[in-house]
């Protein structure tokens, strides 16, 4: 996978750490495509492959933030395209609500991104990570709910 | 010459301080505790009283404490924190290095109720007596200064009298008896005397021996005013702890099942209790580093006794509740001679299911009574249950 040090920042610029949960059938393939076609996106993303975005419990998001992520991306098949027909519809409800709950608890709204990325959308994956990284750079490092030792 | 609570011989040392000079008392206690000492006192926030670190002792107003019967959560966590690091480690085998945390800052605990001050004596027994004393607690305890305020009022949940105590039980290092605009002080330990001496160096004070005695009697009389709680008239010190036959009879009471029926198996009673001290040890790894922490635990929680592999000697909530009440009222006394309940009433006030230690105590007293009677009449029968705890 071709990964460059993204962002045009200086050497001291904050490089946000992103944890991306990608569904096996679409988004992981999309990320793979971004790599094989040598698109550039920030190297500070860590991809976790899950069988379906429906596998993702909202607590995974908070655990990632707790253990040092500055932002979390949930990426699944486009609505209607789920490999298991409907998994991502449930994900959509659950994570929309999780996003609201995090906001109620005072977490920054832009820490959790939900995107639909198909296997052919390598560019969308790279763009998403770039956009997300830039937006997190503005937000700064996440300190909320974060374990200081992580 | 008399003997202080800590066993040192001494002359009686009392003082009469104006109520608005509480800050001076706090400063004297801080001076005795050490330069980096932290002051803790009850403060009202969001409609409830809680123990909080105080940075400006002169703002303390003891008159506001008259509205407080006690804090919602006990002060034990000041000396026995809910989460305590035992050690931390770095590196992976075979290059692990261990590190132990620095000792805690000394604490001045100002405004303790006698039930809570006595509770620290119980923790001393449970954690310090015998081989392998609890060093972490000992470090916090040895440097702490405890200033007790006698109670001017009681709530229906107060049960100190059933536990053999009173609103004026001499406890802590220094006992304060509020009397109108005065604070009558009496040193109870060498540390308490040091605080009084330090205070006298700052504010000359008259001796108050006879005033102290009079006020103590007055407040003890006022205790009779307290609302009719479930423990009214009970005397838990009558429970015989050391006789195996009675213990087995109390243990075998069929009434435990019925008593425990409302229990929801949460750990609230143990966590608000000033004497509960059970703890768990768990590792918190973070990559190649981590720490082992010691955290409060409760015998009421379902996984308290469950061993790796699944064996659990107390799978039913009735068994867990029995353990809790027998530990408090019987087992600790068998080992150390005192009840491990000081009657603060927090468990009864807080129990989400409305369970009450006095209900259990009533059953235990009856079971013990039954054994004694059977012994008299010569028939050895197991303790009979009390059908209706009410």
């Amino acid at each position, binding site marked *: 996978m071709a990964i460059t040090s993204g962002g045009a920042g200086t050497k001291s610029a904050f490089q946000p750490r992103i944890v991306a949960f990608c569904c096996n059938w679409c988004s992981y393939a999309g990320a793979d495509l971004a790599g094989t076609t040598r698109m550039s996106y920030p190297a500070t993303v860590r991809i976790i492959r899950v069988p379906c975005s429906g596998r993702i419990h909202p607590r995974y998001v908070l655990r990632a933030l707790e253990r040092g992520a500055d932002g979390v991306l949930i990426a699944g098949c486009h609505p209607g395209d789920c490999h298991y027909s409907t998994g991502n519809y449930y994900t959509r409800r659950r994570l929309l609500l999780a*996003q609201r709950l995090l906001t109620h*608890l005072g977490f920054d709204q832009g820490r959790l991104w939900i995107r639909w990325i198909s296997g052919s959308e390598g560019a969308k994956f790279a763009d998403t990570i770039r956009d997300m990284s830039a937006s997190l750079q503005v937000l700064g490092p996440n300190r909320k709910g974060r374990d200081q030792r992580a | 010459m008399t003997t202080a609570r800590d066993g040192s011989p001494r002359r009686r040392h009392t003082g009469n301080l104006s109520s608005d000079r509480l800050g001076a008392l706090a400063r004297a206690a801080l001076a005795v505790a050490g330069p980096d000492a932290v002051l803790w006192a009850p403060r009202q926030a969001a409609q409830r009283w809680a123990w909080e670190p105080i940075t400006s002792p002169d703002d303390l107003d003891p008159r506001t404490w008259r509205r407080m019967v006690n804090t919602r959560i006990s002060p034990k966590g000041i000396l026995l924190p809910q989460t305590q690091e035992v050690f931390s480690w770095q590196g992976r085998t075979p290059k692990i290095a261990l590190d132990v945390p620095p000792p805690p800052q000394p604490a001045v605990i100002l405004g303790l109720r006698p039930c809570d001050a006595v509770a620290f004596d119980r923790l001393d027994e449970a954690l310090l007596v015998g081989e392998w004393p609890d060093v972490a607690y000992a470090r916090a305890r040895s440097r702490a200064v405890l200033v007790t305020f006698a109670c001017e009022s009681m709530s229906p949940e107060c049960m100190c009298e059933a536990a053999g105590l009173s609103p004026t039980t001499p406890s802590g290092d220094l006992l304060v008896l509020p009397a109108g605009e005065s604070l009558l002080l009496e040193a109870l330990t060498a540390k308490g005397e040091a605080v009084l001496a330090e205070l006298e160096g700052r504010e000359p004070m008259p001796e108050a021996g006879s005033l102290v005695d009079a006020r103590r009697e007055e407040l003890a009389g006022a205790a009779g005013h307290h*609302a009719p709680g479930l423990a009214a008239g009970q005397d838990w010190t009558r429970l015989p702890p050391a006789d195996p036959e009675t213990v087995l009879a109390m243990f075998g009471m069929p009434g435990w099942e019925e008593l425990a029926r409302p229990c929801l198996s949460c750990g609230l009673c143990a966590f*608000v209790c000033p004497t509960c001290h059970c703890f768990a040890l768990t590792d918190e790894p973070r990559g190649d580093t981590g720490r082992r922490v010691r955290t409060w635990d409760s015998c009421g929680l379902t996984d308290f006794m469950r061993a790796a592999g699944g064996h659990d000697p107390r799978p039913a909530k009735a068994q867990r509740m029995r353990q809790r009440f027998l530990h408090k009222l019987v087992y600790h006394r068998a080992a150390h001679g005192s009840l491990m309940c000081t009657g603060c009433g927090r468990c009864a006030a807080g129990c989400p299911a409305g369970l009450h230690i006095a209900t259990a105590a009533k059953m235990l007293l009856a079971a013990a009574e039954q054994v004694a009677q059977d012994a008299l009449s010569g028939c050895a029968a197991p303790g009979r249950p009390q059908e209706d705890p009410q």
Partner: protein
Amino acid sequence: MPDAGQPVGYPAEVLRDLQQLVRDCARSLLEQGEVGMVIGHRAAAPYGRGVPAFVTEPGEAGQLMVGPQCQVGIGKYLLDQTRATRGRVAVIGRGCDILAARRLIADNRVAPDQVLLLWVPCAGRAVPEAMAKGGAVARHCLQCDVRLPEPGQDGIEIIGAHLAGALASASLVGEGCLEATAPRIAPAGPGADNAGDAGYERWSGWFEHCLRCYACRATCPACNCDICVLESRSPQWVERSTALPQQFMFHFIRAMDVAGRCVNCGECERACPAGIPLMDLQQLVAADITELFGVERPHVPGEHEPLGIFDARDPDPERPARTSGGGALS
């Protein structure tokens, strides 16, 4: 029963009649063998507060009570008692107790033919500390929409329907009613005072005092799993230490896991020894569910959980939200 003063909301004669109806009903159910146990409330010292009563003999029905002093939510006891009792188990309770029981049924934790639900009208639950001062109802009772029995529901009978009118007009807010007037935390939407750092600081202030005693979970009718994720050691989502990140983890997981299944009974908040306004979180989530997914009254257990179903037209995080007010999602 010690005198607890004039209870808020309940005219004395209504209370007396209601209580008699409840006792008569319980007695006859037990006498006729309709049920093996009736779960209700009985008075206990101090304050004469109502604690759970598990009545199995017709002769014991006289101890049952109703009214503002009834502190403990009793619906969740069905979980234990239907397994331990021969015959059906009846719950004689308020709207919140009935919803709690329906929660257990909807979650397949209790079989509907094992229970009998008897709904008693209610004018709010008093706060124990305030009883001596004439009473005060708990905060969330003010927003309660199941105080009065709703007729025509399967498996639910109503006790004292003719008295509901008298309670409907009763005022819930009495003298010294501190608790009921305590403000709710407003939604932390964009631009709200509670958003971002201020909201985080506020919740940190509460969570710092959390004792992790599990009283919120123990009392919650939606928390009815046999094995709880909060206690799991492998994988361990929440460590035992009370460091702030662990506290956020604990309360986030709990709030999320009961989201869409919370029956708005307020038991978590009542039980919390640290006084954390846990219902604020649940009510914010409930409002979100209504707004995002169009589910009215999400606290009433229905055929499907809001998070157990979906609608292809649900708002999409990649498109502007269908409804306004909740704010654009990233």
